[in-house]
C-alpha cells in the first residue's frame, strides 16, 4: 500500500521537463495560429453574446 513503491522504476526522469516545454510551446503556437486565423464575422458574433441574451424587454 506504500504509495512510493509503485513508480520507482521509471527511468530517464530528466526528460520530463523537456517534454513539458515542447508540449507547451507546440500547444501555444497552435492556439495563437487558430486565434489569428479565425473568421472576423464569427468573432464579432461571439463577442456580442453577453450583450444579447434574448430577454423580452417590456
Amino acid at each position, binding site marked *: *500500500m*506504500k*504509495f*512510493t*513503491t*509503485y*513508480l*520507482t522504476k*521509471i527511468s530517464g*526522469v*530528466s526528460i*520530463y*521537463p523537456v*517534454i*513539458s*516545454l515542447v*508540449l*507547451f510551446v507546440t*500547444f*501555444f503556437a497552435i*492556439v*495563437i495560429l*487558430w*486565434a*489569428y*486565423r*479565425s*473568421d472576423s464575422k*464569427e*468573432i*464579432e*458574433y*461571439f*463577442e*456580442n*453574446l*453577453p*450583450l444579447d*441574451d*434574448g*430577454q*423580452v424587454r417590456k
Partner: protein
Amino acid sequence: MELQKFQYDNELPKQFAIATILWGVVGMLVGVIAAFQLAFPVLNFGLEFTTFGRLRPVHTNAVIFAFVGNGIFTAVYYSIPRLLKTPMWSKALGKIHFWGWQLIIVAAAVTLLMGFTTAKEYAELEWPLDIAITLIWVVFGINMFGTILTRRERHLYVAIWFFIGSWVTVAMLHIVNSFELPVSFMKSYSWYAGVQDALVQWWYGHNAVAFFLTTPYLGLMYYFLPKAAGRPVYSYRLSIVHFWSLIFLYIWAGPHHLLYTALPDWAQSLGTVFSVMLLLPSWGGMLNGLFTLRGAWDKVRVDPILKFFVVAVTCYGMATFEGPMMSLKNVNAISHYSDWTIAHVHIGALGWNGFLTFGMVYWLFPRLFNTRLYSVKLASTHFWIATLGILLYAIPMYWAAFRSYFMMSAFTPEGQLQYQFMDIVQTIVPFYILRAIGGTIYLAGVVLMVYNLYKTARSGKFVKTEDAEAPALPRQFAKPKGAHWHSWVERRPVTLLVLSLIVVGIGGLVEMVPTFLVDTNVPTISSVKPYTPLELQGRDIYIKEGCYNCHSQMIRPFRYEVSRFGDYSKAGEFVYDHPFQWGSKRTGPDLARIGGKYPDSWHFNHMLEPESMAPGSIMPPYPWLFEKTVDAGTTNSKIHAMRKLGVPYPDGYEAKANDDMKKQAESIVANLKKDKIKIQSDKEIIALIAYLQRLGTDVKTKNNVQ
C-alpha cells in the same frame, strides 16, 4: 425560424449573491480578529476555539470557499442561462447545490474551530467533509453540463470555457490532494508523506488560487465587464489565447511554493520556468479587460461599478506580475515565510476577488429587484474606502517583509547573528497593527455595501423570473463553408471538457510522477526512525492546534537560517511525516530542529505562559493542554493506519504501543519533577513536549546521509 419562449430564474442567483455577501462579512471579520490577535495576543482569549491557529484556517477557508465560492456560483447561475438562452437544467439540483454548499460551510467553520483539521492549507477539512464537497461539486457539474447540453446557442462564450475549465480542474485537485486514510470519524492521515505531501499540497494550493480564485473570476470578468460597460470585450481572439495558455501553464507552477526547500532541484526549476511564463497570458487577460473600456473612460469616472472593475483588473495585473517575480529563487529567498506572501495574496483576494464581486453585486441587485441602486454616491464611497483599506493593508506588510529579511540576515562583524528572533517579532508588531486597521477599513466599506444593497432591495420588487425568447437549436448543424476547425471544439462542450482535463492533467502528471520516485530523488537516512506512540499523539496535537500556521519546519540552506535554526533540512528527514508540516509562514521561529534545544520544563512553562520564557512573544497561551488527557484508545488505530501508509512499525506493535507511550510519558514527568513541576503523565502537554523534543534530532550531522 420560430421563437421559443422560456424564462430565466433569478431565485438562485439572488440566494447565491446574498450568501456571497453574508460569508464575505463573516470571513473578513474573522480575518480582522486574527490580524489583531497577532498584535495583541490577549485577543486569543485563552480559549482553544478562539486561538489564532484555529481561527486563521476559518478565515482562509471562509474567504476562498464561502465568499469567492458563492460569488462564482452567483455568476454561473446568472450568466450561463443568459449566454446559452435556456434556463438552468434542473431547479432541484440548483437547490441541492445551494443548500449543500452552505451546509458544508457551516460544518467547516464548526469543525475547524473544534480542531478537526488535516493541516494542509486550504484543504484543512477532514474526510467526511471532503466527500460532501465532492458530491456537491458533482451536483453542480451535472446541472452546469445539463444546461450546456440543452442550450439554444451553438457557440459557448469564453466565460463558459473558464467555468468548465475551473470545474474540471478543481475536481481533479480536490480529489488528488484529499487522498487520506481515515483513522476515525473526523481524523485522517495524508496518503503522501514529507516531500511528496508537500509537492501535492502546493500543486493543490497553488492551483486552488488558480482555478478557484482566478479562472472562474475571469469568466465572471468576461461576462460582467462587457455587461457593465455595454460593449463587447476588447479582443475575443485574445481571450481564446488567454484561456488555453492560462490553464495550460497554471497547473505546472505549484513547486514555486517550495523553492530552497528539500524538494528536488529540477522540480523547483520547473516551477520557476512556468511561473515566469505565466506572466504572458495573465497580462494578456488584464489588458483585454482594461482595453474593453477604451473610449469609455468617461463612464468609469461616474460609475462605481466600472471603478471597481478597473481596480480589480489592475490588481489582477499587479498580483500576476508579482507572482512570477516571487517565483525567481533570489526573490523567493526574501518573500518565502514572510509577510510579503500575505500582502501578495491580499492584493489578489481584496483587490481582484473582492472588487470584482462588489462590482458584480452592485450591478446585479438593481436588476434582480427591478429598481435603481439606492445610492450611487455611497457605492463610490465604498470604492474609495476599500481602496484605502487595501493600501493600508498591503504597504505595511511589504515593509514588514523587507524589514524582517534585513534583520534576519544581518551579521555582526564578528560573524554572529545581529538580532534575536524576538527582536524581529517585536519590530514587526506595529506593522501588524496597521495591517489590521487596513483590514477593518476594508470591512467597513463592505458594511456600507450591505446597507446600500439592502436599501436597494427594499426599494424594488424581486423579479422571480425573466421572460426570454430564442429560436431552438437545429439538431443538424450545417457547417458553414470554410469554417475553422476550432469552431468544432467550441460547439462541443464535452470535447472542451475532456480537452481541458487532458491539458491540465499532463501538467499535473509530469510534475508529480517523478517526485514519487523517492528512492532516487530523496536520499534515505538510516537514522530517521518512525515517531514513538507518544510523539505521534503529540504531533496530532500540534496539528490540531494549527501550529503550522505560524511555525515552519523547514530550514533553508542559507547561512542566516542555519546559524539561527540549525543544520538545513533534508528530504530524507520527512519520510514518515503524514502529513508534512513545513508550514508557509514564520510568524514564530522555525521548529525543524527545536528538539533538545531547551529542557522539558521550558516547553512546559512556555506553552502555559509564553511570555514567561520568551518575553515579548506574541504566541497565545495553551492552558487547556494541561487539563485535557491524551486518548490512549486511539493509539492502536493510529499506529495501524501509519503502518498501512508505509511507516515501518513492527507487526503487532499496536499491542505494545500504549505501554511504550506510558513509559515515555513517565520519563518526561520525572524530568519535569526535577524542575519542581508536578503533572500527570496522561496530559496532552506531555505528548506535545515529547514531539517537540524529537523534532530534528534524528539527524545531527551531514555524515549519516547515505
